[in-house]
């Protein structure tokens, strides 16, 4: 009995230490990223390539996600509002729901699925094929050449994607509101515009910047620490997406607490 308790405690202890060690490594990686970000050289061409890959090429998936989410949100709020005769709140709740929560969170998660996996797979493959070592021998710091452009690009691009997603999501709600729920077009737009505050949009974009940073950081961290072989790259890709998604959800709660509770 005592043996099994000791063994269980040992397992808990080992898991806790291993979790804290992993957390420490991620935090150190983040600090190193910040440190390298403020000193040259800066690889501007790589930054623009990353902006296109992370930002521009994510637009279709963000747009589709936002459009259908906005539409579904309008249907749900209408159905829920009907229980206490508050169907008229659909435009305002769709707008606030999209800009404060669903736009940044769903946008962040979609970018995590698309970008964290691709960054981890790309850098992981570079690691196992010695391309990272080759960079070092070519007088180039992998952190500056690979990590910084991706992290900066994601931190800049995701808030912009969130803003576009917000607009498309609100438009999705508007389309459903007009075509399926019988709202008046002008009244829907007026309700949306009157109710929405600048801070609603800005807070979502700040969340987007944080999520973009998390997504690229996790992709780069797991890619750089990928073990040898195809299995190692696969594991790094999976870990990057899971870690980025979980961190997005945790940081979303923390930021919401910070922004909206008094």
């Amino acid at each position, binding site marked *: 009995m005592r043996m099994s308790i000791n063994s269980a405690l040992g397992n808990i202890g080992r898991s806790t230490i291993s979790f804290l060690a992993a957390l420490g490594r991620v935090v150190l990686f983040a600090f190193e990223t910040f440190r390298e970000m403020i000193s040259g*050289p800066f*690889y501007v061409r790589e930054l623009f390539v990353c902006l296109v890959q992370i930002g521009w090429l994510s637009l279709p998936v963000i747009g589709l996600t936002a459009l259908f989410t906005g539409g579904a949100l309008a249907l749900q709020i209408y159905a829920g509002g009907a229980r206490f005769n508050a169907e008229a709140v659909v435009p305002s709740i769709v707008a606030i729901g999209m800009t404060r929560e669903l736009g940044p969170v769903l946008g962040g998660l979609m970018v995590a699925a698309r970008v964290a996996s691709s960054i981890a797979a790309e850098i992981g493959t*570079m690691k196992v*094929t*010695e*391309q990272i*070592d*080759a960079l*070092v*021998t*070519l*007088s*180039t710091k992998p952190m500056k050449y690979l990590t910084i452009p991706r992290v900066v690009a994601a931190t800049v691009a995701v808030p912009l994607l969130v803003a576009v997603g917000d607009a498309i999501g609100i438009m999705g709600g508007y389309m459903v509101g007009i075509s399926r729920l019988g709202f008046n077009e002008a009244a829907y737009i007026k309700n949306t515009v009157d109710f929405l505050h600048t801070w609603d949009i800005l807070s979502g974009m700040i969340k987007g910047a944080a999520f973009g940073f998390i997504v690229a950081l996790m992709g780069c961290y797991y890619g750089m620490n990928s073990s040898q072989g195809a299995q190692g790259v696969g594991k790094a890709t999976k870990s990057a997406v899971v870690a980025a998604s979980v961190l997005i959800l945790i940081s979303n709660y923390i930021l919401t607490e910070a922004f909206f509770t008094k």
Partner: protein
Amino acid sequence: MIQLQNVHKSFGNNHVLKGVNMDVGKGKSLVIIGGSGTGKSIILKCILGLEKPNQGQILLHGKDINRTNRENFFARFGMLFQGGALFDSLTVWQNVAFKMLRGKLKKTNAEARNIAIEKLRHVGLKPEVADKYPAELSGGMQKRVSLARAIAANPEIIFFDEPNTGLDPIMSGVINDLIREIVVEMKATAITITHDMSSVRAIADKVAMLHDGKIRWTGSIEEMEQSDDPYLTQFINGHSHGPIETIR
């Protein structure tokens, strides 16, 4: 020029290098031979600073390499990696001119491209391949591109990690000749890791055999051919019986 003094390197309980001592003179070509997993590549990684030795010193021109400026070291260094290690997202000429497109050696795109094409010619590749991507080339061509990248900045020190892996005997011979030519022409100091005895004979001024974490034998090609060291003899003749344990 490069000296290793009592270099130890372990990974957990796996003691890979157990006191390696060796040196390479300026403009000389040293080939390190030894069985798979004996730590040959770790020696190169320790010299490059990609791995940190647990004990011992590595000297470059008599100075501890860890106290010299790494950037200055890499500025006059080139390396041919086992798998080529070409960057998939860049064209062939951008790979070859990588050092000249950024950093201290930065040149204009046109200048860098011209130098890349000249280096590609040097390794027997036509200018037409310059705008292709590495994935569009055969294994032998990729190795040549990697060789062109290694010599692009006219390095004083070049490392070749298993330059013939995955190549047919003819292409292997071509790469060996190119390496010898480059080392002689450029008067570079070279360290090569290989299992291929024809490469050893073609490339080496001096041979060092790594076994059980230490340099077991060192000498010239002529001395190697005449040596009666049982480990060396077994290795160069590819015998399955002898003092080196083989797993069947």
